């Protein structure tokens, strides 16, 4: 309360202060399409002041004395420019920047391309960021440019298994990552059975992942915040982008609605493989087969109401549909169809208002809907029996933030968030010829989740700065209240112009959690929440780091290292022998099973060190990332109550990523990754159980295979490594730009293990000798893709 009163007092003092200077502000645009550029840096050397543009490309230096100023404007995707102005009155600047591709056509220059770790001088969280342009340069599986997978090439962020679009961050499970699309939580973030993420790279500006030193405005997950923003709309002219690929095709359209005032962006992506499969099926006599479809759609509307007020609204929807059918279309209409669907619907609106050069506010409303459904239809001589499993989530969020810049050295953010959750984890119903019977239901949960938070960004001296915050969360479910006070501290000490030390401490709470199946298979994550018997999960994280811009080769190298220690409490997993089947299946053994009774909460620890060495500019750019880490957990009743390594415990993880501009048109990119094999539980031996003939009390026909297990996750899969290569040819046309890319996934055809299975020796099923084999499912895979951008280009 004292802190709040101090804040209000400073607020009052501020309004009593007047100045005789002039205001300098403006907007930075991408020249080619006049789209606002977020995170452009506007620097005035004489004042040693730097401002980063917001999502709408706006910057504001506030009141400055009348004088001559030189401005340096930089953006990762554009050529740096310098601008000289004489400030004689309140000034609003419009600054267009030229993108790299245009510069390359004319003359090659040294430009800044990669900015993964951000400003080494700023007391910011442990964050990694990739722009959509960086992501385009990274080779991808089947040509799909995937922002989430691109993140896994950075230290501390791992793929769960080959091809997967999920992430493990600093020893945390996939459910410990909060995906925010325009500040709206996304509960399902993949397509195609988890092989690619549902984030369409053409629809976003960048993807940012915070893995430590979380600012107080973020909460609700233990391990990371994945912050994704869709592209702001284009106010100036129509622009069309699109692409054709093996797995999906996409189209993005930017349309000015009111010139220089309002614009609309729509981006759609869809697989076309289902059309190909359906065409094949027309000529087939059998209904047997598999079909799948996925799409995603992003839409955003921006309205520049005034220089001080902006409004934006967005919508995102996606769906995955897998269908497996059996039947015979010639002889009858009988069929057996299994359908699985995953779908998100997110939407929201935000209004931002700048009251004066020190105070601005934003008000945001959004909604997140997620649904998962399994539908199994048996149609036999018009006798239809259908089993339907559904799992749903509905969230509504209100967020209000106030930014108050007391001075250049002291800034505040005060905000609050109010969320209502409605979770329907799972229900199973039977529909027999339109007679519906409810077979099984995990109870619905309604909860209210409220937070208030305060952040202060304080530059104590020229060398020492900090971001200190506090977040209070109240989670109310079934009239049981869970309180959480979460301090957040992040500091940075600038040793010299090119070197900084950083340290952070954070406490995070997670009251909602996902039950993920403990192995491979179709992704079936059931979202549940804290109850009377299940406690919220907590984590603390301490990290220490060093960032250094190396003083050779035009300062184009940045070296970052960080050590972290993260204890976790109440992390949740299925008990041994249980999975979602026990909650959603219809096995009589599971009759009356309550989800809280088949899960276990325990404690975990993750610690390690991360290194990132980045070459930020030049014909050749890229990075080397390395992580050394340990992750283990202890659950009562599991593994004899001993610590065991978690599946995503990965001792060594190395990634090399490079981009080489061969000519003005050709570019080569590659990535090579190496990781210690995944921790896995394997049987140490197998034996057979004969069927018994109980009428005569002897052994009968047939048998089952049983296993003698090792300790949990006692073994390791083979080490994982692969090389991906891509080549891009970019061409400029009168109508715009096109890029043709060929790529090779797993170029040297490494047989990385995907799963292990028991097999008979020498492939003889009758053999009583068995071994364990690994199966590899991603051999060398070539890909082709073509993308284009159509847009009005200004004459130079």
């Amino acid at each position, binding site marked *: 309360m004292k802190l709040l009163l101090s804040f209000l007092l400073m607020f009052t003092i501020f309004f009593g202060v007047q100045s005789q200077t002039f205001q300098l502000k403006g907007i930075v645009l991408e020249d080619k399409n006049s789209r606002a550029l977020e995170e452009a840096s506007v620097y005035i050397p004489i004042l040693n002041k730097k401002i980063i543009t917001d999502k709408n490309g706006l910057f504001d230096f506030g009141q400055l004395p009348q004088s001559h100023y030189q401005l340096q404007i930089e953006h990762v995707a554009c050529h740096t420019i310098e601008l000289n102005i004489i400030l004689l009155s309140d000034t609003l600047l419009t600054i267009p920047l030229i993108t790299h591709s245009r510069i390359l056509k004319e003359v090659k220059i040294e430009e800044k391309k990669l900015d993964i770790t951000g400003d080494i001088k700023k007391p910011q969280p442990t964050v990694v960021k990739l722009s959509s342009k960086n992501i385009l340069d990274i080779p991808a599986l089947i040509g799909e440019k995937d922002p989430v997978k691109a993140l896994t090439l950075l230290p501390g962020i791992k793929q769960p298994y080959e091809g997967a679009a999920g992430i493990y961050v600093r020893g945390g499970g996939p459910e410990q990552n909060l995906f925010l699309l325009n500040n709206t939580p996304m509960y399902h973030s993949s397509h195609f059975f988890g092989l690619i993420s549902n984030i369409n790279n053409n629809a976003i500006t960048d993807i940012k992942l915070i893995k430590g030193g979380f600012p107080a405005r973020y909460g609700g997950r233990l391990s990371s915040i994945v912050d994704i923003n869709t592209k702001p709309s284009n106010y100036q002219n129509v622009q069309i982008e699109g692409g054709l690929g093996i797995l999906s095709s996409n189209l993005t359209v930017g349309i000015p609605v009111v010139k220089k005032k309002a614009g609309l962006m729509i981006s759609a992506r869809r697989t076309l493989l289902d059309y190909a499969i359906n065409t094949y099926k027309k000529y087939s006599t059998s209904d047997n087969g598999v079909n799948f479809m996925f799409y995603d759609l992003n839409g955003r509307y921006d309205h520049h109401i005034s220089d001080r007020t902006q409004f934006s609204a967005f919508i995102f929807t996606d769906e995955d549909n897998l269908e497996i059918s059996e039947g015979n279309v010639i*002889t009858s209409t009988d069929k057996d169809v299994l359908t699985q669907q995953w779908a998100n619907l997110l939407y929201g609106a935000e209004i931002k208002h700048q009251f004066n050069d020190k105070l601005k506010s934003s008000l945001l409303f959004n909604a997140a809907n997620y649904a998962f459904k399994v539908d199994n239809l048996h149609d036999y001589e018009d006798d239809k029996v259908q089993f339907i499993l559904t799992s749903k989530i509905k969230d509504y969020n209100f967020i209000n933030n106030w930014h108050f810049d007391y001075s250049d050295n002291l800034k505040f953010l005060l905000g609050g968030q109010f969320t209502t959750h409605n979770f329907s984890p799972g229900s199973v119903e039977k529909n027999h010829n339109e007679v519906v019977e409810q077979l099984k239901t995990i109870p619905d949960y309604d909860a209210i989740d409220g937070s208030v938070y305060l952040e202060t960004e304080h530059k104590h001296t020229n060398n020492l700065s900090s971001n200190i915050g506090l977040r209070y969360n109240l989670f109310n479910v079934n009239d049981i209240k869970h309180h959480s006070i979460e301090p957040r501290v992040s500091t940075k000490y600038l040793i010299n112009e090119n070197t900084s030390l950083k340290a952070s401490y954070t406490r995070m709470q997670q009251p909602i959690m996902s039950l993920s199946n403990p192995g491979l298979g179709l992704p079936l994550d059931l979202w549940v929440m804290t109850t009377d018997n299940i406690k919220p999960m907590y984590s603390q994280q301490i990290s220490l780091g060093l960032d250094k811009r190396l003083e050779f080769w035009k300062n184009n190298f940045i070296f970052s290292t960080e050590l972290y220690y993260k204890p976790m409490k109440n992390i949740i997993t299925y008990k041994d022998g249980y999975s979602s089947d026990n909650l959603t299946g219809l096995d009589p053994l599971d009759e009356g099973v309550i989800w809280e009774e088949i899960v276990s909460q325990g404690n975990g620890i993750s610690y390690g060190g991360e290194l990132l060495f980045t070459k930020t500019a030049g014909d050749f750019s890229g990075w080397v990332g390395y992580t050394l880490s340990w992750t283990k957990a202890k659950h009562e009743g599991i593994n004899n109550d001993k610590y065991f390594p978690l599946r995503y415990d990965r001792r060594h993880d190395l990634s090399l990523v490079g981009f080489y501009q061969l000519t003005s048109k050709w570019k080569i990119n590659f990535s090579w990754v190496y990781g210690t094999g995944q921790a896995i539980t394997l049987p140490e031996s197998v034996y057979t159980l004969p069927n018994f003939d*109980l009428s005569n009390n002897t*052994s009968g026909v047939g048998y089952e295979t049983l296993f003698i297990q090792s300790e949990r996750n006692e073994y390791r899969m083979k080490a994982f490594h692969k090389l991906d290569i891509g080549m891009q040819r970019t061409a400029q046309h009168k109508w715009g730009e096109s890029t043709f890319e060929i790529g090779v996934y797993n170029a040297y055809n490494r047989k990385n293990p995907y799963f292990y*299975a028991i097999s008979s020796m020498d492939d003889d099923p009758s053999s009583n000798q*068995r071994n364990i*084999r690994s199966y590899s499912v991603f051999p060398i895979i*070539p890909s082709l893709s073509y993308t284009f951008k159509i847009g009005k280009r200004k004459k130079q």
Partner: protein
Amino acid sequence: MKEKVIIFLLMLFFFSCLQNETIDELKIDAFKPQLVVYGLLSPEKDPFVNVRLIKGFEEPNGAEEDLIHNAEVILYNALGEGILLTEVDTTGNYYADKQQFAISKGERYTLEVNYDKLSVTAECEVPVEGAVWNSFTHTKTYEIVQPFYLGNYITNIISGNWVDVSTQTEQYYYVGGVDVTDAFIATNLHGDTIIENYRIGFNVLYDPYAITTVNDTIHYQGEISYNGWIKGYYHLITMEENYYNFSVTSSRMKNLIDPNIGNFLISYKGILPEFTNIEGGVGFFGAYLTDSVYFEMK
């Protein structure tokens, strides 16, 4: 030079269209060979024990499993009177004559198996009371001719119920089983008539839609969907707790790891706590009671 790099990469791309499958073997820790013992007792039936020896995956021949032919298998009753079971075939099955060693309801038995330097023991108690059929019916529901299928397809619905006599303390559980004995006549693809003994042991434990319970009466409805059934017995089995617990574990293990891609997509149940009451080995030593009903297909 740059053109050569481009040409090299293009060649790599086209040669990369080759695809390969699998496979490597995995080395794991040494595993001490163990005896697997399955022992089953039931009143009015010969005591039966099956003995096997298993080795670990690290062995040159992999996880080999051998049926043991010269084990010493001894069964003791509560009075300490023992009988040596003898192997009557080469399937690792050992029996004692029920005339020489009778199994009684409610009595406790001890099993001892010695082979080479390995020795295991186990105990179990035969249930005091077994469930009996209250009613039993079967009806033929439909007959279909499917062109590409083997002959006609007949489904018979089996219905029955019994009173639940289980208690938590005694840990009695039920399984209804079908076991068709005697001659089973089937028609094969070429129209020849063959006669064979065909036995099926399935129990309602694994049949998702078979059981409903009203008050203390358990109702069962199952299907026999095989062509050519003519007569048989339908058994109601009351299992002793060790047999039951082992059955539960084994049914859950079925989907644990399976190289079949179809099953691979079924969610994986993680690590299963194994159940055994064989001290020093694996398997189980259990007992059951049976109530049977004879039926003939119409």
